[in-house]
């Protein structure tokens, strides 16, 4: 096992983590601030991916597609908030679960209606194609490096927004007492729509970025959603820092687990068995990690102040 391989795998873990962070950031914001469980967050991710693929196909430019993905997801998010979500803040989590579950059905089937059942494809823009050499002799896909970069920029930006600006203060105040912040003269309703749209846009961005890597299809949101939930719960709901740490943790643990567990087991078991047992254990790994973390830190790694 070479150093280059290990570095490459770590980068893979990091890239997966950053991806998860982009989805999870919006989710944790919406969840932490509005106390809303939004199962349809994965659908926003899907919408971003579809918007990017469709616009990129029509204009021939990935970058225009990327802008479209942000716009489409933000618009869809705002629309969703105004039409449905807004009525749910006062309700308990279960109503939110059902309503946003219904939104998943509607949006997925709606997308299928619009775009058909076949996956769309989206190509990596020319400047980001190919691989770059790594120190230590390996190679790494340029596009994935770019994703890592985007994730870091977003993380820093969000952190500053939430902790340093008055908007962030108001968001956090709304998180603990919505009625009170309104009674102090802050238009919390609009603020919430903005936050929701922001979270949606991040999810849409993630969808577009991933779309170019994988494929754009109906149903791509749900697995991502579950992982994003794992991430924000590990990190501590509402915490941007937590989402970042949780995401990278999940990304690295998952990637390294899949990579190393079969090899470790091969020391004790026959090869084919080690492979399948290893693969099984590896898929369980992040859930085991999550259960362990919650068992010892019941409110996640960076539990909020409240």
């Amino acid at each position, binding site marked *: 096992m070479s150093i280059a391989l290990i570095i*490459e795998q770590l980068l893979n873990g990091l890239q997966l983590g950053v991806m998860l962070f982009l989805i999870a950031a919006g989710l944790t914001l919406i969840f932490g601030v509005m106390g809303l469980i939004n199962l349809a967050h994965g659908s926003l991710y899907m919408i971003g991916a579809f918007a990017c693929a469709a616009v990129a196909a029509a204009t021939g430019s990935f970058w225009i597609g990327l802008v479209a993905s942000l716009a489409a997801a933000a618009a869809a998010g705002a629309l969703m908030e105004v039409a449905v979500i807004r009525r749910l803040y006062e309700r308990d989590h279960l109503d939110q679960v059902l309503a946003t579950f219904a939104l998943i059905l509607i949006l997925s089937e709606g997308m299928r209606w619009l775009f058909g059942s076949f996956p769309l494809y989206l190509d990596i823009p020319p400047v980001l194609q*190919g691989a770059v050499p790594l120190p230590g002799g390996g190679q790494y896909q340029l596009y994935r490096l770019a994703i890592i970069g985007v994730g870091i920029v977003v993380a820093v930006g969000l952190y500053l927004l939430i902790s340093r600006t008055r908007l962030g203060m108001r968001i956090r105040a709304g998180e603990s007492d919505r009625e009170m912040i309104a009674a102090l003269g802050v238009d919390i309703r609009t603020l919430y729509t903005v936050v929701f749209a922001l979270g949606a846009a991040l999810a849409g961005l993630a969808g577009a970025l991933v779309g170019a890597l994988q*494929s754009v299809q109906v149903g791509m949101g749900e697995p991502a959603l579950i992982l994003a939930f794992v991430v924000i719960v590990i990190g501590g709901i509402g915490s941007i820092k937590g989402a970042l740490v949780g995401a990278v943790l999940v990304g690295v643990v998952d990637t390294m687990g899949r990579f190393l567990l079969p090899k470790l087991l091969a020391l004790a078991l026959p090869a084919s068995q080690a492979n399948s047992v290893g693969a099984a254990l590896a898929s369980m790994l992040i859930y085991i990690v999550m259960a362990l973390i919650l068992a010892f830190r019941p409110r996640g790694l960076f539990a909020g102040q409240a």
Partner: protein
Amino acid sequence: EPVKIGVITTLSGGGAGLGVDTRDALVLAFKKAGNKDVELVIEDDAQKPELAVQIAEKMIQSDKVDLMTGIIWSNLAMAVVPNTVAQDVIYLSPNAGPSALAGANCHKNYFNVAYQNDNFHEAMGQYANQDYKKTFILAPNYPAGKDSLTGFKRYYKGELAGELYTQVGQTDYAAEIAQIRASGADSVFFFLPGGMGIAFMKQYAQSGVGLPVLGPSFSFSQDVLPAVGDAALGVKNSASWSKDLDNEANKEFVEAFQAEYGRLPSIYAAQSWDTANLILSALAKASVKDKDAFRAALKEADFKSVRGEFTFNTNQHPIQNIYVREVVKEGDVLTNKIIGTAFEKHGDAYVEQCKM
């Protein structure tokens, strides 16, 4: 009273492309035949076994179908087929071919019109011997995936640079690609149907690994190619069918399909088309109500297969040629072209275990 055929197939989710082709070819075949006595009851299984089971129950009990077909995935087939055939309903598989149903659990009401799961992979194992000494192999971690690698290894003589099982439905293969890069392999064999194959190929192409890839047609079939793009050009893959296969039935099929749907048919469409024609050929000879006669008629396989010569083995699985194809570009369209034959009149490895 029309003959009712229940079609359970995957019309939504990552595997939808496969089911849509299956359905479209089936519908078209019956339409072309102008047979007014056939009624199709089509339902989406969303690639979920338990849903497939419920649909099957409904088709048998409520729609009272005479025949069933349509299932793409082995795990769904394993859930539906045993109970269906036990209720004396004839089932014809247009795609899935799990080894269990070919061997010990074969059944007189079960006909596989497609292949036994191992077949295409065996062919690729055979073919790989020509050029490669050290292949890296990977497939999803489910029994059809295991059948696949078993099939490959049954014929491959070189060394394995690595053997990996991925998750079913996995969409990111960065970790696997890293291992391929580090393995010192001279080639990569992978079985990843539908969206999985698209994702793998796109990422592989960008990774800079650059080793030649090969696989069964599932990894490079017509539903996958447009999304993968030029990265697939020149890739070798194995199948019992290709659109350029030179026979009357195939020409007619490809033309009709393209005219009707504006796209090229995939292997799934071809197999499904054959299934429809097999049914039609049997209907011409016997009534579905007379099960014995109908089964006998099916068994004769007296239809013009788009795959050329086609007969049933004693376990009611195909004996057919398996070809090696290459991905080529015709105009802007990526498609496959036959470049050789891996096996002639190939059956499967489980037929001995079938007591029928």
